[in-house]
């Protein structure tokens, strides 16, 4: 997915403008089709008639979101929790991943533990964590960290463990001190891999934060979705869901850019 997804800008040659017009034409058709399907499923005979608000109402609600103070507070809270969790997960994941990459015996001994922990569906931890932590900010952060630490850890371990044999010989021959090796050789070498970890984790952080907020109703976009839903304000709920999707999309774009900038920085190839 990494390489191919980025290669969408394949040569379109001179017909570029025409193709672009064609693409946009079809996109417009697609949007109209989807809108038509939506309105059709609101017809009186449809089981969804009572549930789906008119598209126009959703549009109005979406346009009104920036005027609501609670929207900005919610976006702030969501990003705050997601980024806090991401930062903690990053530090923790890179540190542990480096450790595991350096010490194969530790990696072997902890492999099962790591695999078990990774396989845990994060939201399944909520009941236990609610009993232990309540439903405030710390809970959301803990859930985000639990979800996001693994891509960092796994990617860092892979990056660090794969030390080029020639480099390893050099390091050994000159008895370069361990800390220096980690800082100057291993981590830089692992940076592209860590970049991939960051991309995966960033996308996950936002989704997991909003999911948690929806379930436990802690301050944030997820809570706004839940409140709107529980107040029977369906158009508003869809508007918030759309906003959440746009936020997730923005984070994805940001994450891909972050990955690219980390990947571009490669240490000189040896041999």
């Amino acid at each position: 997915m990494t390489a191919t997804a980025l290669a969408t800008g394949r040569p379109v040659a001179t017909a570029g403008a025409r193709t672009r017009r064609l693409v946009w034409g079809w996109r417009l058709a697609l949007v109209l089709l989807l809108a038509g399907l939506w309105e059709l499923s609101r017809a009186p005979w449809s089981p969804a008639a009572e549930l789906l608000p008119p598209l126009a109402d959703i549009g109005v609600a979406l346009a009104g979101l920036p005027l609501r103070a609670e929207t900005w507070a919610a976006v702030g809270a969501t990003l705050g929790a997601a980024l806090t969790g991401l930062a903690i997960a990053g530090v923790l994941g890179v540190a542990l991943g480096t450790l595991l990459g350096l010490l194969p015996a530790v990696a072997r001994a902890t492999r099962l533990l790591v695999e078990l922990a990774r396989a845990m569906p994060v939201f399944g931890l909520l009941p236990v964590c609610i009993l232990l932590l309540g439903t405030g900010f710390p809970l959301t952060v803990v859930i985000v960290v639990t979800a996001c630490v693994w891509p960092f850890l796994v990617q860092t371990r892979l990056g660090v463990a794969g030390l080029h044999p020639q480099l390893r010989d050099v390091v050994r021959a000159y008895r370069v001190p361990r800390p220096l090796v980690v800082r100057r050789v291993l981590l830089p070498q692992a940076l592209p891999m860590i970049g991939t970890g960051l991309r995966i984790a960033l996308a996950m952080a936002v989704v997991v934060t909003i999911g948690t907020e929806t379930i436990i109703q802690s301050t944030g976009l997820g809570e706004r979705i839940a409140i709107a839903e529980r107040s029977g304000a369906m158009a508003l709920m869809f508007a918030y869901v759309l906003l959440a999707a746009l936020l997730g999309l923005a984070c994805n774009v940001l994450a891909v850019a972050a990955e690219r900038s980390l990947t571009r920085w490669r240490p000189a190839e040896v041999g």
Partner: protein
Amino acid sequence: MHAHRHRPAAVLTAALAASALLAALAGCAAPAAEPLVPDPDAPVAITVLVAPVYFEANYVAEAQGFYAEHGLDVTIQRGTTADAALAALANGSAQLAGSSGVATITAASRGIDARIVGGISGMDEDANSGIYVGAGSGFDSPADLTGATIAINGLRNTTELLLRIAIDEDGGDSSKTQFVEIPYSAMNQSLASGQVDAIYQVSPFSSSVDGVRLENPYSADFAGAPAVAWVATSAYAEQNPAVIDAYTAAMAEAYAYANEHPDAVRAVLDEVTELSAEDLEATELIEFGMTIEPEVVGRLADAMLDYGFIDRGVELAELLREGS
């Protein structure tokens, strides 16, 4: 070389594992300090986690300055479920929390430190809340609900207990009744589409139910069961009796004020929910009152044991703060 390299790694791993374990076990710390005394000039800061219903008067108390008058600086936090509320009390992120009587009794039966220090009496049915069934469904009395599926807003809580009692007292068999948890906002749809046979609905959503309301089926034994119980840990309540007293006094004033000023209550609802103007207008407000009736709480605990909500009986002394 190989064996030589294994050792430190193993020791390090074991050390890491041990420290992680210690960190996990050291989760709870016990603060001990002088009792806090509320003073209007030097207010005591507390955090109150309100229940998801009947929280309006807390905001009224804040706006009207009742907390300040009683020497409290209250931070109001919106709560969700009782397990989360009691966890917040246990880890000290809140000092008081709104829970349900049934949830608090459940917690106490499991050895969790939770004392009821006051409560909103309620559960008095008004014309706009209660059990609704589809028109012409043939469910005319609680006993008919044997074998039915009923939507309530929280499993193993007050509504389920009282409905089970009502069905059985009416000659039905509640062990054949299925309860399913659905938020109030989604219940009407569930009833209309036939997913459930009956719903326990409240205003404002009850105004748009496509169905009929069964007359108040509840046993008179439980009239005055706490709709919301104000809960603190016994450690905090015993350490800081003056704070608890100040809080219950402030809330009693707030309830009285809220009963006289429904517009203030609606303004709070407008602020914290997304209810439409019509729904807001249709919302029936309850008559707030700061009372706990120990006999009713005791009967609740007994009934919970009978119905298997709890595995062991709970004494009133474990539940109620002395003098509340």
